[in-house]
C-alpha cells in the first residue's frame, strides 16, 4: 500500500515536471498505458479473492483517477502555453501601411449636372439632349438669328467647312438653345402643334474664345417651359427656386434686367446678389446691401413668338420662357474652384481634390449639394 502511494507521488511529480506535450505523453504511457504500472496493477485485481479485491480496488481506482486528472490538467496548461507562444510568434507590426485602394472621383461638372437634374425633376422638368455639331438653322436661324443678324458675330462660332443637307453651314453649337428648338419640334410634331414642355438641356458648348476666364469648350444648361399662361413671374420663381435649392440657402435674391437675345422677347438678364469672403464670391443677400454686389448668372426671357412658330407652335395659344446658365460657373461658385481652365486639364490631383465620391449622388432628402 505504501508502495502504491509512493509510486503515485513519484508519478505526480513527474507529470508536473513534464515540459512539453510529448514528455507528458511518456508519463501517461508509463502510468496509464497498456503496460503502465497502474494498468498492470489493475490487472492484478482479477487474481485476487473477492475480499482482497474489495479492499485493493477502490484505492487503485482512486490512484488511477488522480493521475488521469493530473495528466489532463497538465495537458490543458501546456496547450495554453503553446498557443500563447504561437500568438507571440505571429505578432506583426500594424503600423506598416495597408495596401492602397484606388479612390475614384466624379468631375464637378458631372456632379452639378446631376444636381441640376435632381432639382429640376422635382419641378417636373426632364432632361433633353441634342447634337454638339449642329447646323446653322438649329443654332441660329430657328432662334431668330438669320444670316445677317449682328448677334451672330457675338457668338464667336467655330465653323466646319461642311454643309448641312439644307445647305446651311455646320458648326459647333454655341449654346444649348438648339436643343430647345429640337425639343419643341419633336413635341409639336408628336402632338400636332403643341403641348406643355418642361425641360432642361445641359451640355457642352463651344465658342472660339480663350483667356483667363473663357475656354473654347464649356458647359451650359438651357431651361424651357412652354405652356398656356406662363410669364416672366414664373421665370423668376423658377430661377429663384432653383438657386435656393442649388446653393441650399434661402437668402437668394435675383435681379432681372432687360437685355436682348434674338430668341426671347422680352429678354431678361439674371443677376444674383453676392458678397465676398476673402477672395471667394459667396452667393446670397441683396446685391445693393452693404458689402454686396450683383453678379450676372445668365440670360433668359419669354420665348420669341417667331421662334415658337418656327418649331410648330401657335404663339397665340402657347407661350413660355427659356433660360441659359453656365454650369462651370455655378459649379465654381458653389464648390470654390477658381480656375476654369483646370476643369479640362485632367490633372489627377485636381480631380481628386475637387471631385466627388461616387456615393455623393445628389438626393433631395440629403440635400443635393455634396458636403465637404
Amino acid at each position, binding site marked *: 500500500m505504501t508502495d502504491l502511494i509512493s509510486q503515485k507521488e513519484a508519478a505526480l511529480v513527474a507529470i508536473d515536471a513534464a515540459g512539453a506535450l510529448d514528455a507528458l505523453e511518456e508519463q501517461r504511457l508509463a502510468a496509464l498505458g497498456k503496460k503502465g504500472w497502474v494498468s498492470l496493477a489493475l490487472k492484478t485485481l482479477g487474481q485476487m479473492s473477492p475480499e482482497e479485491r474489495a479492499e485493493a480496488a477502490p484505492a487503485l481506482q482512486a490512484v488511477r483517477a488522480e493521475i488521469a486528472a493530473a495528466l489532463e490538467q497538465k495537458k490543458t496548461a501546456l496547450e495554453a502555453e503553446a498557443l500563447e507562444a504561437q500568438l507571440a510568434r505571429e505578432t506583426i507590426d500594424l503600423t506598416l501601411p495597408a495596401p492602397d485602394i484606388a479612390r475614384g472621383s466624379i468631375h464637378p461638372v*458631372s456632379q452639378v449636372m446631376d444636381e441640376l437634374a435632381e432639382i429640376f425633376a422635382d419641378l417636373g422638368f426632364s432632361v433633353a439632349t441634342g447634337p454638339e455639331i449642329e447646323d446653322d438653322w438649329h443654332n441660329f436661324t430657328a432662334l431668330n438669328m438669320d444670316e*445677317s443678324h449682328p448677334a451672330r458675330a457675338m457668338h464667336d462660332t467655330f465653323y466646319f467647312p461642311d454643309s448641312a443637307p439644307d445647305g446651311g453651314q*455646320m458648326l459647333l453649337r454655341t449654346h444649348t438653345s438648339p436643343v430647345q428648338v429640337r425639343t419643341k419640334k419633336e413635341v409639336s410634331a408628336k402632338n400636332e402643334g403643341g403641348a406643355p414642355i418642361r425641360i432642361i438641356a445641359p451640355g457642352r458648348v463651344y465658342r472660339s474664345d480663350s483667356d483667363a476666364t473663357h475656354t473654347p469648350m464649356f458647359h451650359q444648361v438651357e431651361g424651357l417651359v412652354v405652356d398656356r399662361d406662363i410669364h416672366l413671374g414664373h421665370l423668376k420663381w423658377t430661377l429663384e427656386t432653383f438657386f435656393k435649392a442649388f446653393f441650399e440657402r434661402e437668402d437668394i435674391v435675383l435681379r432681372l434686367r432687360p437685355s436682348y437675345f434674338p430668341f426671347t422677347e422680352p429678354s431678361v438678364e439674371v443677376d444674383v446678389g453676392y458678397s465676398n469672403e476673402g477672395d471667394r464670391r459667396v452667393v446670397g443677400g441683396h446685391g445693393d446691401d452693404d458689402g454686396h454686389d450683383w453678379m450676372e448668372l445668365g440670360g433668359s426671357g419669354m420665348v420669341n413668338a417667331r421662334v415658337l412658330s418656327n418649331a410648330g407652335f401657335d404663339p397665340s395659344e402657347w407661350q413660355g420662357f427659356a433660360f441659359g446658365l453656365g454650369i462651370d460657373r455655378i459649379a465654381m461658385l458653389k464648390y470654390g474652384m477658381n480656375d476654369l481652365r483646370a476643369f479640362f486639364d485632367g490633372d*489627377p490631383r485636381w480631380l481628386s481634390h475637387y471631385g466627388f465620391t461616387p456615393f455623393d*449622388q445628389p438626393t433631395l432628402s440629403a440635400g443635393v449639394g455634396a458636403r465637404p
Partner: protein
Amino acid sequence: MKFSTTWLKDHLDTNVSLQEITDALNAIGLEVEGVEDPSETLKGFTVAKVVSAQKHPDADKLQVLKVDTGDGELLQVVCGAPNARAGMKGVLGLPGAVVPSNGMELRKAAIRGVESTGMMCSARELELGEDHAGIIELPDNASVGHSFADYQGSSPIIDVAITPNRPDCMGVYGVARDLAAAGLGTLKPIAVPSFEALGPCPVEIRTDDPAGCPAFYGRVITGVENGPSPDWLQQRLKSAGQRPISLLVDLTNYLMLAYGRPAHVYDLAKLSGAVVARRAKNGEQVLALNEKTYTLDESMVVIADDKEVHDIAGIMGGENSGVSDDTTDVLLEIAYFDPARIGVTGRKLGLASDARTRFERGVDPEFLEQGLDLLTGLIVELAGGTASDVVKAGSPPSDAKVVAFNTALTAKLGGVEVPADEQRRILESLDFAVSDEWQVTCPLRRHDIEGPADLVEEVVRIHGLDKVESVALPRPEGVARPTATPAQTLERRVRRAAAAHGLNEAITWAFLPDAEAEHFAPEGATLWTLDNPISEDMKVMRPSMLPGLLMAAKRNADRGGASTRAFELGRRYFRGSDGLSDEHATLGVVLAGEKVPRGWAGGKATGFDAYDAKGVALELLSAVGAPAEKLMVMEPVADGTGTQFHPGQSATLRLGPKKVLARFGMLHPATLKAFDLDGPVAAVELFLDAIPAKKAPKGPISFARPSFTPPSLQAVTRDFAFLVPAQLPAEDLLKAIRGADKANIVAARVFDLFTGEGVPDGTKSLAIEVTLQPQDKSFKDADLKAISDKVVAAAAKLEAELRG
C-alpha cells in the same frame, strides 16, 4: 459705348446723381459696364505754382523747384522737364497719388540726394494726351491749390453695353431719350447751328443701287480750314475713347457718337466727276483709311467717282479721298444702307468699324437731313466755309410698322400689371404713336420692334422689371415623377460605377490635333475638322475618347505623377452619310503608370496589364446591366485601327459576332510613341450606345425580382488538368467543358496556367475546376465517372489531353 455725364447733360435736362443715372441705365436695359470718375483717378493731383526753379546740384538735366500748393508752405520738388520754370502753373501729384498712366503711387523720395515731395506731371502721365515733352502748363487764371479734377471740370465717364437690337442708343442722344422716358429728366431738343446754304451743289450725287443704298444725301462746303479740334470737342471724343484726329474727322465722329449717325467727309479736290452709290465690280480694289487694301465683289455697295472707289459703303472710307490739313473743299455724305448687306460685306471683308456696327444694326431713317444739317452747321461754325444746297438721291425707308396692341398682354407675358394709361405714356415717351384703338405706330429707328411682345418689353423695362413678382409654376400633385431616359440613367450609373472602381473622371477637349485624331480614326470614317480652330491643337473633333485621356496622362507623368487612372464620358464625332453629325456616347479609360507602387509587402512597383483593362470593361458593363455572361471576347475590329492597340494584347467584347460593346487591352508601342508616353498603358473604350437598352415594361412597372430558390443539394467540384495547344484560347476549352453535360455542369473556371518543365513545347497546361450541381439526388461514383468522361471527351475535340 462711353460718354461723360457732361455730354449726357447736353441732351438730358436733369439734376439726378451719378448713382441714380447708372441704376436707371441698368434698370432699362442699357447695362453699365463701368464708371470712371476722374475725381477718383485724379485724386491727389493739384493745381500748383512754381515759385522758384534752380539747377540740381548733382544732375545736369534736373531742377529743384519750390512749389506753392496754396497751403502756405512751399514744397520742394525735383523735376526733369525742360519747360519747368519759375512763375508757371502746372499739376503737382502729391505723395499718395497714383499716376493714372502707370499705376505708380507717388512717394516722398530723395532724387540724387535732394528730397522731392511729389511730381510735376506731363499730359501723358495723367492720360490726358500724348504730350510727354514737358509738364502740363496751365493758364495764369488757374487757381492754385484747387484739385486738378475740379479745375479741369472733367465729369464721370459711363461705359454702357448697348445690345445689338438698340442701335438707336448707340449715340448719347438716344441714351438720353431712354432715360427721359424712365423719368430721369427732360430730353432737350436737338440744336442745329444755323448756317446759310448758298447755291446748288456742284457735284452730281446718285444712287445706282436703290436696294443697297436707298438714300444718299450730300452737300459741298467750300473754303473750310481743317486743323485740331477745339478743347470741348477733343474732351468729348476722349471721353468716348476716341482719339481726336482733325476737326473735320472729329466732327463726323462727334455726329456718330452723339446721335448714332455715321457720316463721311471727302476731300473734294480728290474726287472726279459724279459721286455714285453703286455695286462694286468683282475684283475691284480700294485702299481703306486703315491703310489696308480690300478686294471687293459685286454683292458689296461702294461710293465711287468716275475713277475709283472711295468708300466701302457704311463701313470705311478710302484713304485716297480722306481729308487732310490741306483740305479746303469737302463733300459731305450721309446715306442709308441696307443693314443686312452691310453685315454680310463686313463679315466677308473681316472689317469692323464703328460705322458698320451702327449701319448693320440699322440707323434712324428719319435722321438724314437733320443729321446732315447738324454736321454742316458744326463745320461752318468751327471750320468756316460756305455750304451748298443739299442733294438728295433716293429716299430712305418711310413705312412705319403698325402693331395692334392689347394692353392685357403686358400682364399675360410680362407678369406685371401696368395701367393702360401708364403703358400709353411709356410708349409715347419713346416716340411710339398710340391711337385710341391701340394701334401703335413705331418710330422708324426702332428696327427691333416686330410685334406685340416687343411692346410688352418696352413697357416692362421702363416700368421696371423689379416690379415683376415671383409666381410659382403649377406643380402636379404628389411626389415628382421620374424623368430620366434609359440612356441618361445608363450614363449616370456607368459614371459612378467607374468612380467606384477607382477611376477619376476627367473632362478633356472635344477637339484634337490633327495627328492625334488621325491616329485614332477608324478607316473610312469622316471626321469633322474645324475651319477656324483656335489653335492647331484644337482642330479635329475626336473619333475616340482615348487621345484626350492619353494627353492628360502625359501631362500627369511630366508633372511626376506616378499613375493615371482616368475616365471620361463624352461623345465621339463622325460625319454621317446624311451630312449631319453622328455622335456616339462613349466612355474611355486610360490606366497608365503604376498600378501598385513599390511597397514593403509586394516589393517592386507593378504596372497595369490587359487583364486590368478587361476587368474594368466587364465591371462597368455589368454595372449598367449588360448581359456579362453572354459577352464574347473576340478579336479587335478590323477597321485599320491596328496600330492603336497591341495586336496580341487587345480584344473586343461583343454581344453576338457583330455588336461590339467595348474594346480593351494594352496600347500599341506606336501609340505610346505618338503620345510620347512611357508604357505600358492599358485602355478601354465602352460604346455606351451599343449596350442594349432595358425594355420599358408594358403596364405598371414591377420592381419584384424572381423568387430565390437555392438548390437543395450541395454542389461538388472536380479538378482536371489538360495539356492543350499553346494557341488555344482558354475560353474555348471552358465553353467546351460547360457544354459537355449541361444538365450537371454549372460552372468551369481556370485555376492554373502553366508552361515550362514537364510541359512539352507548343503546349500549355490548363487546370480547370468544374462545378457539378446534383439535381434531385446526390451523385454516385458512377455518375461522377460518367460526367468526367464527358468532360475529357469534349476537351479532346480541342486536342486537349488529360494530364496523368
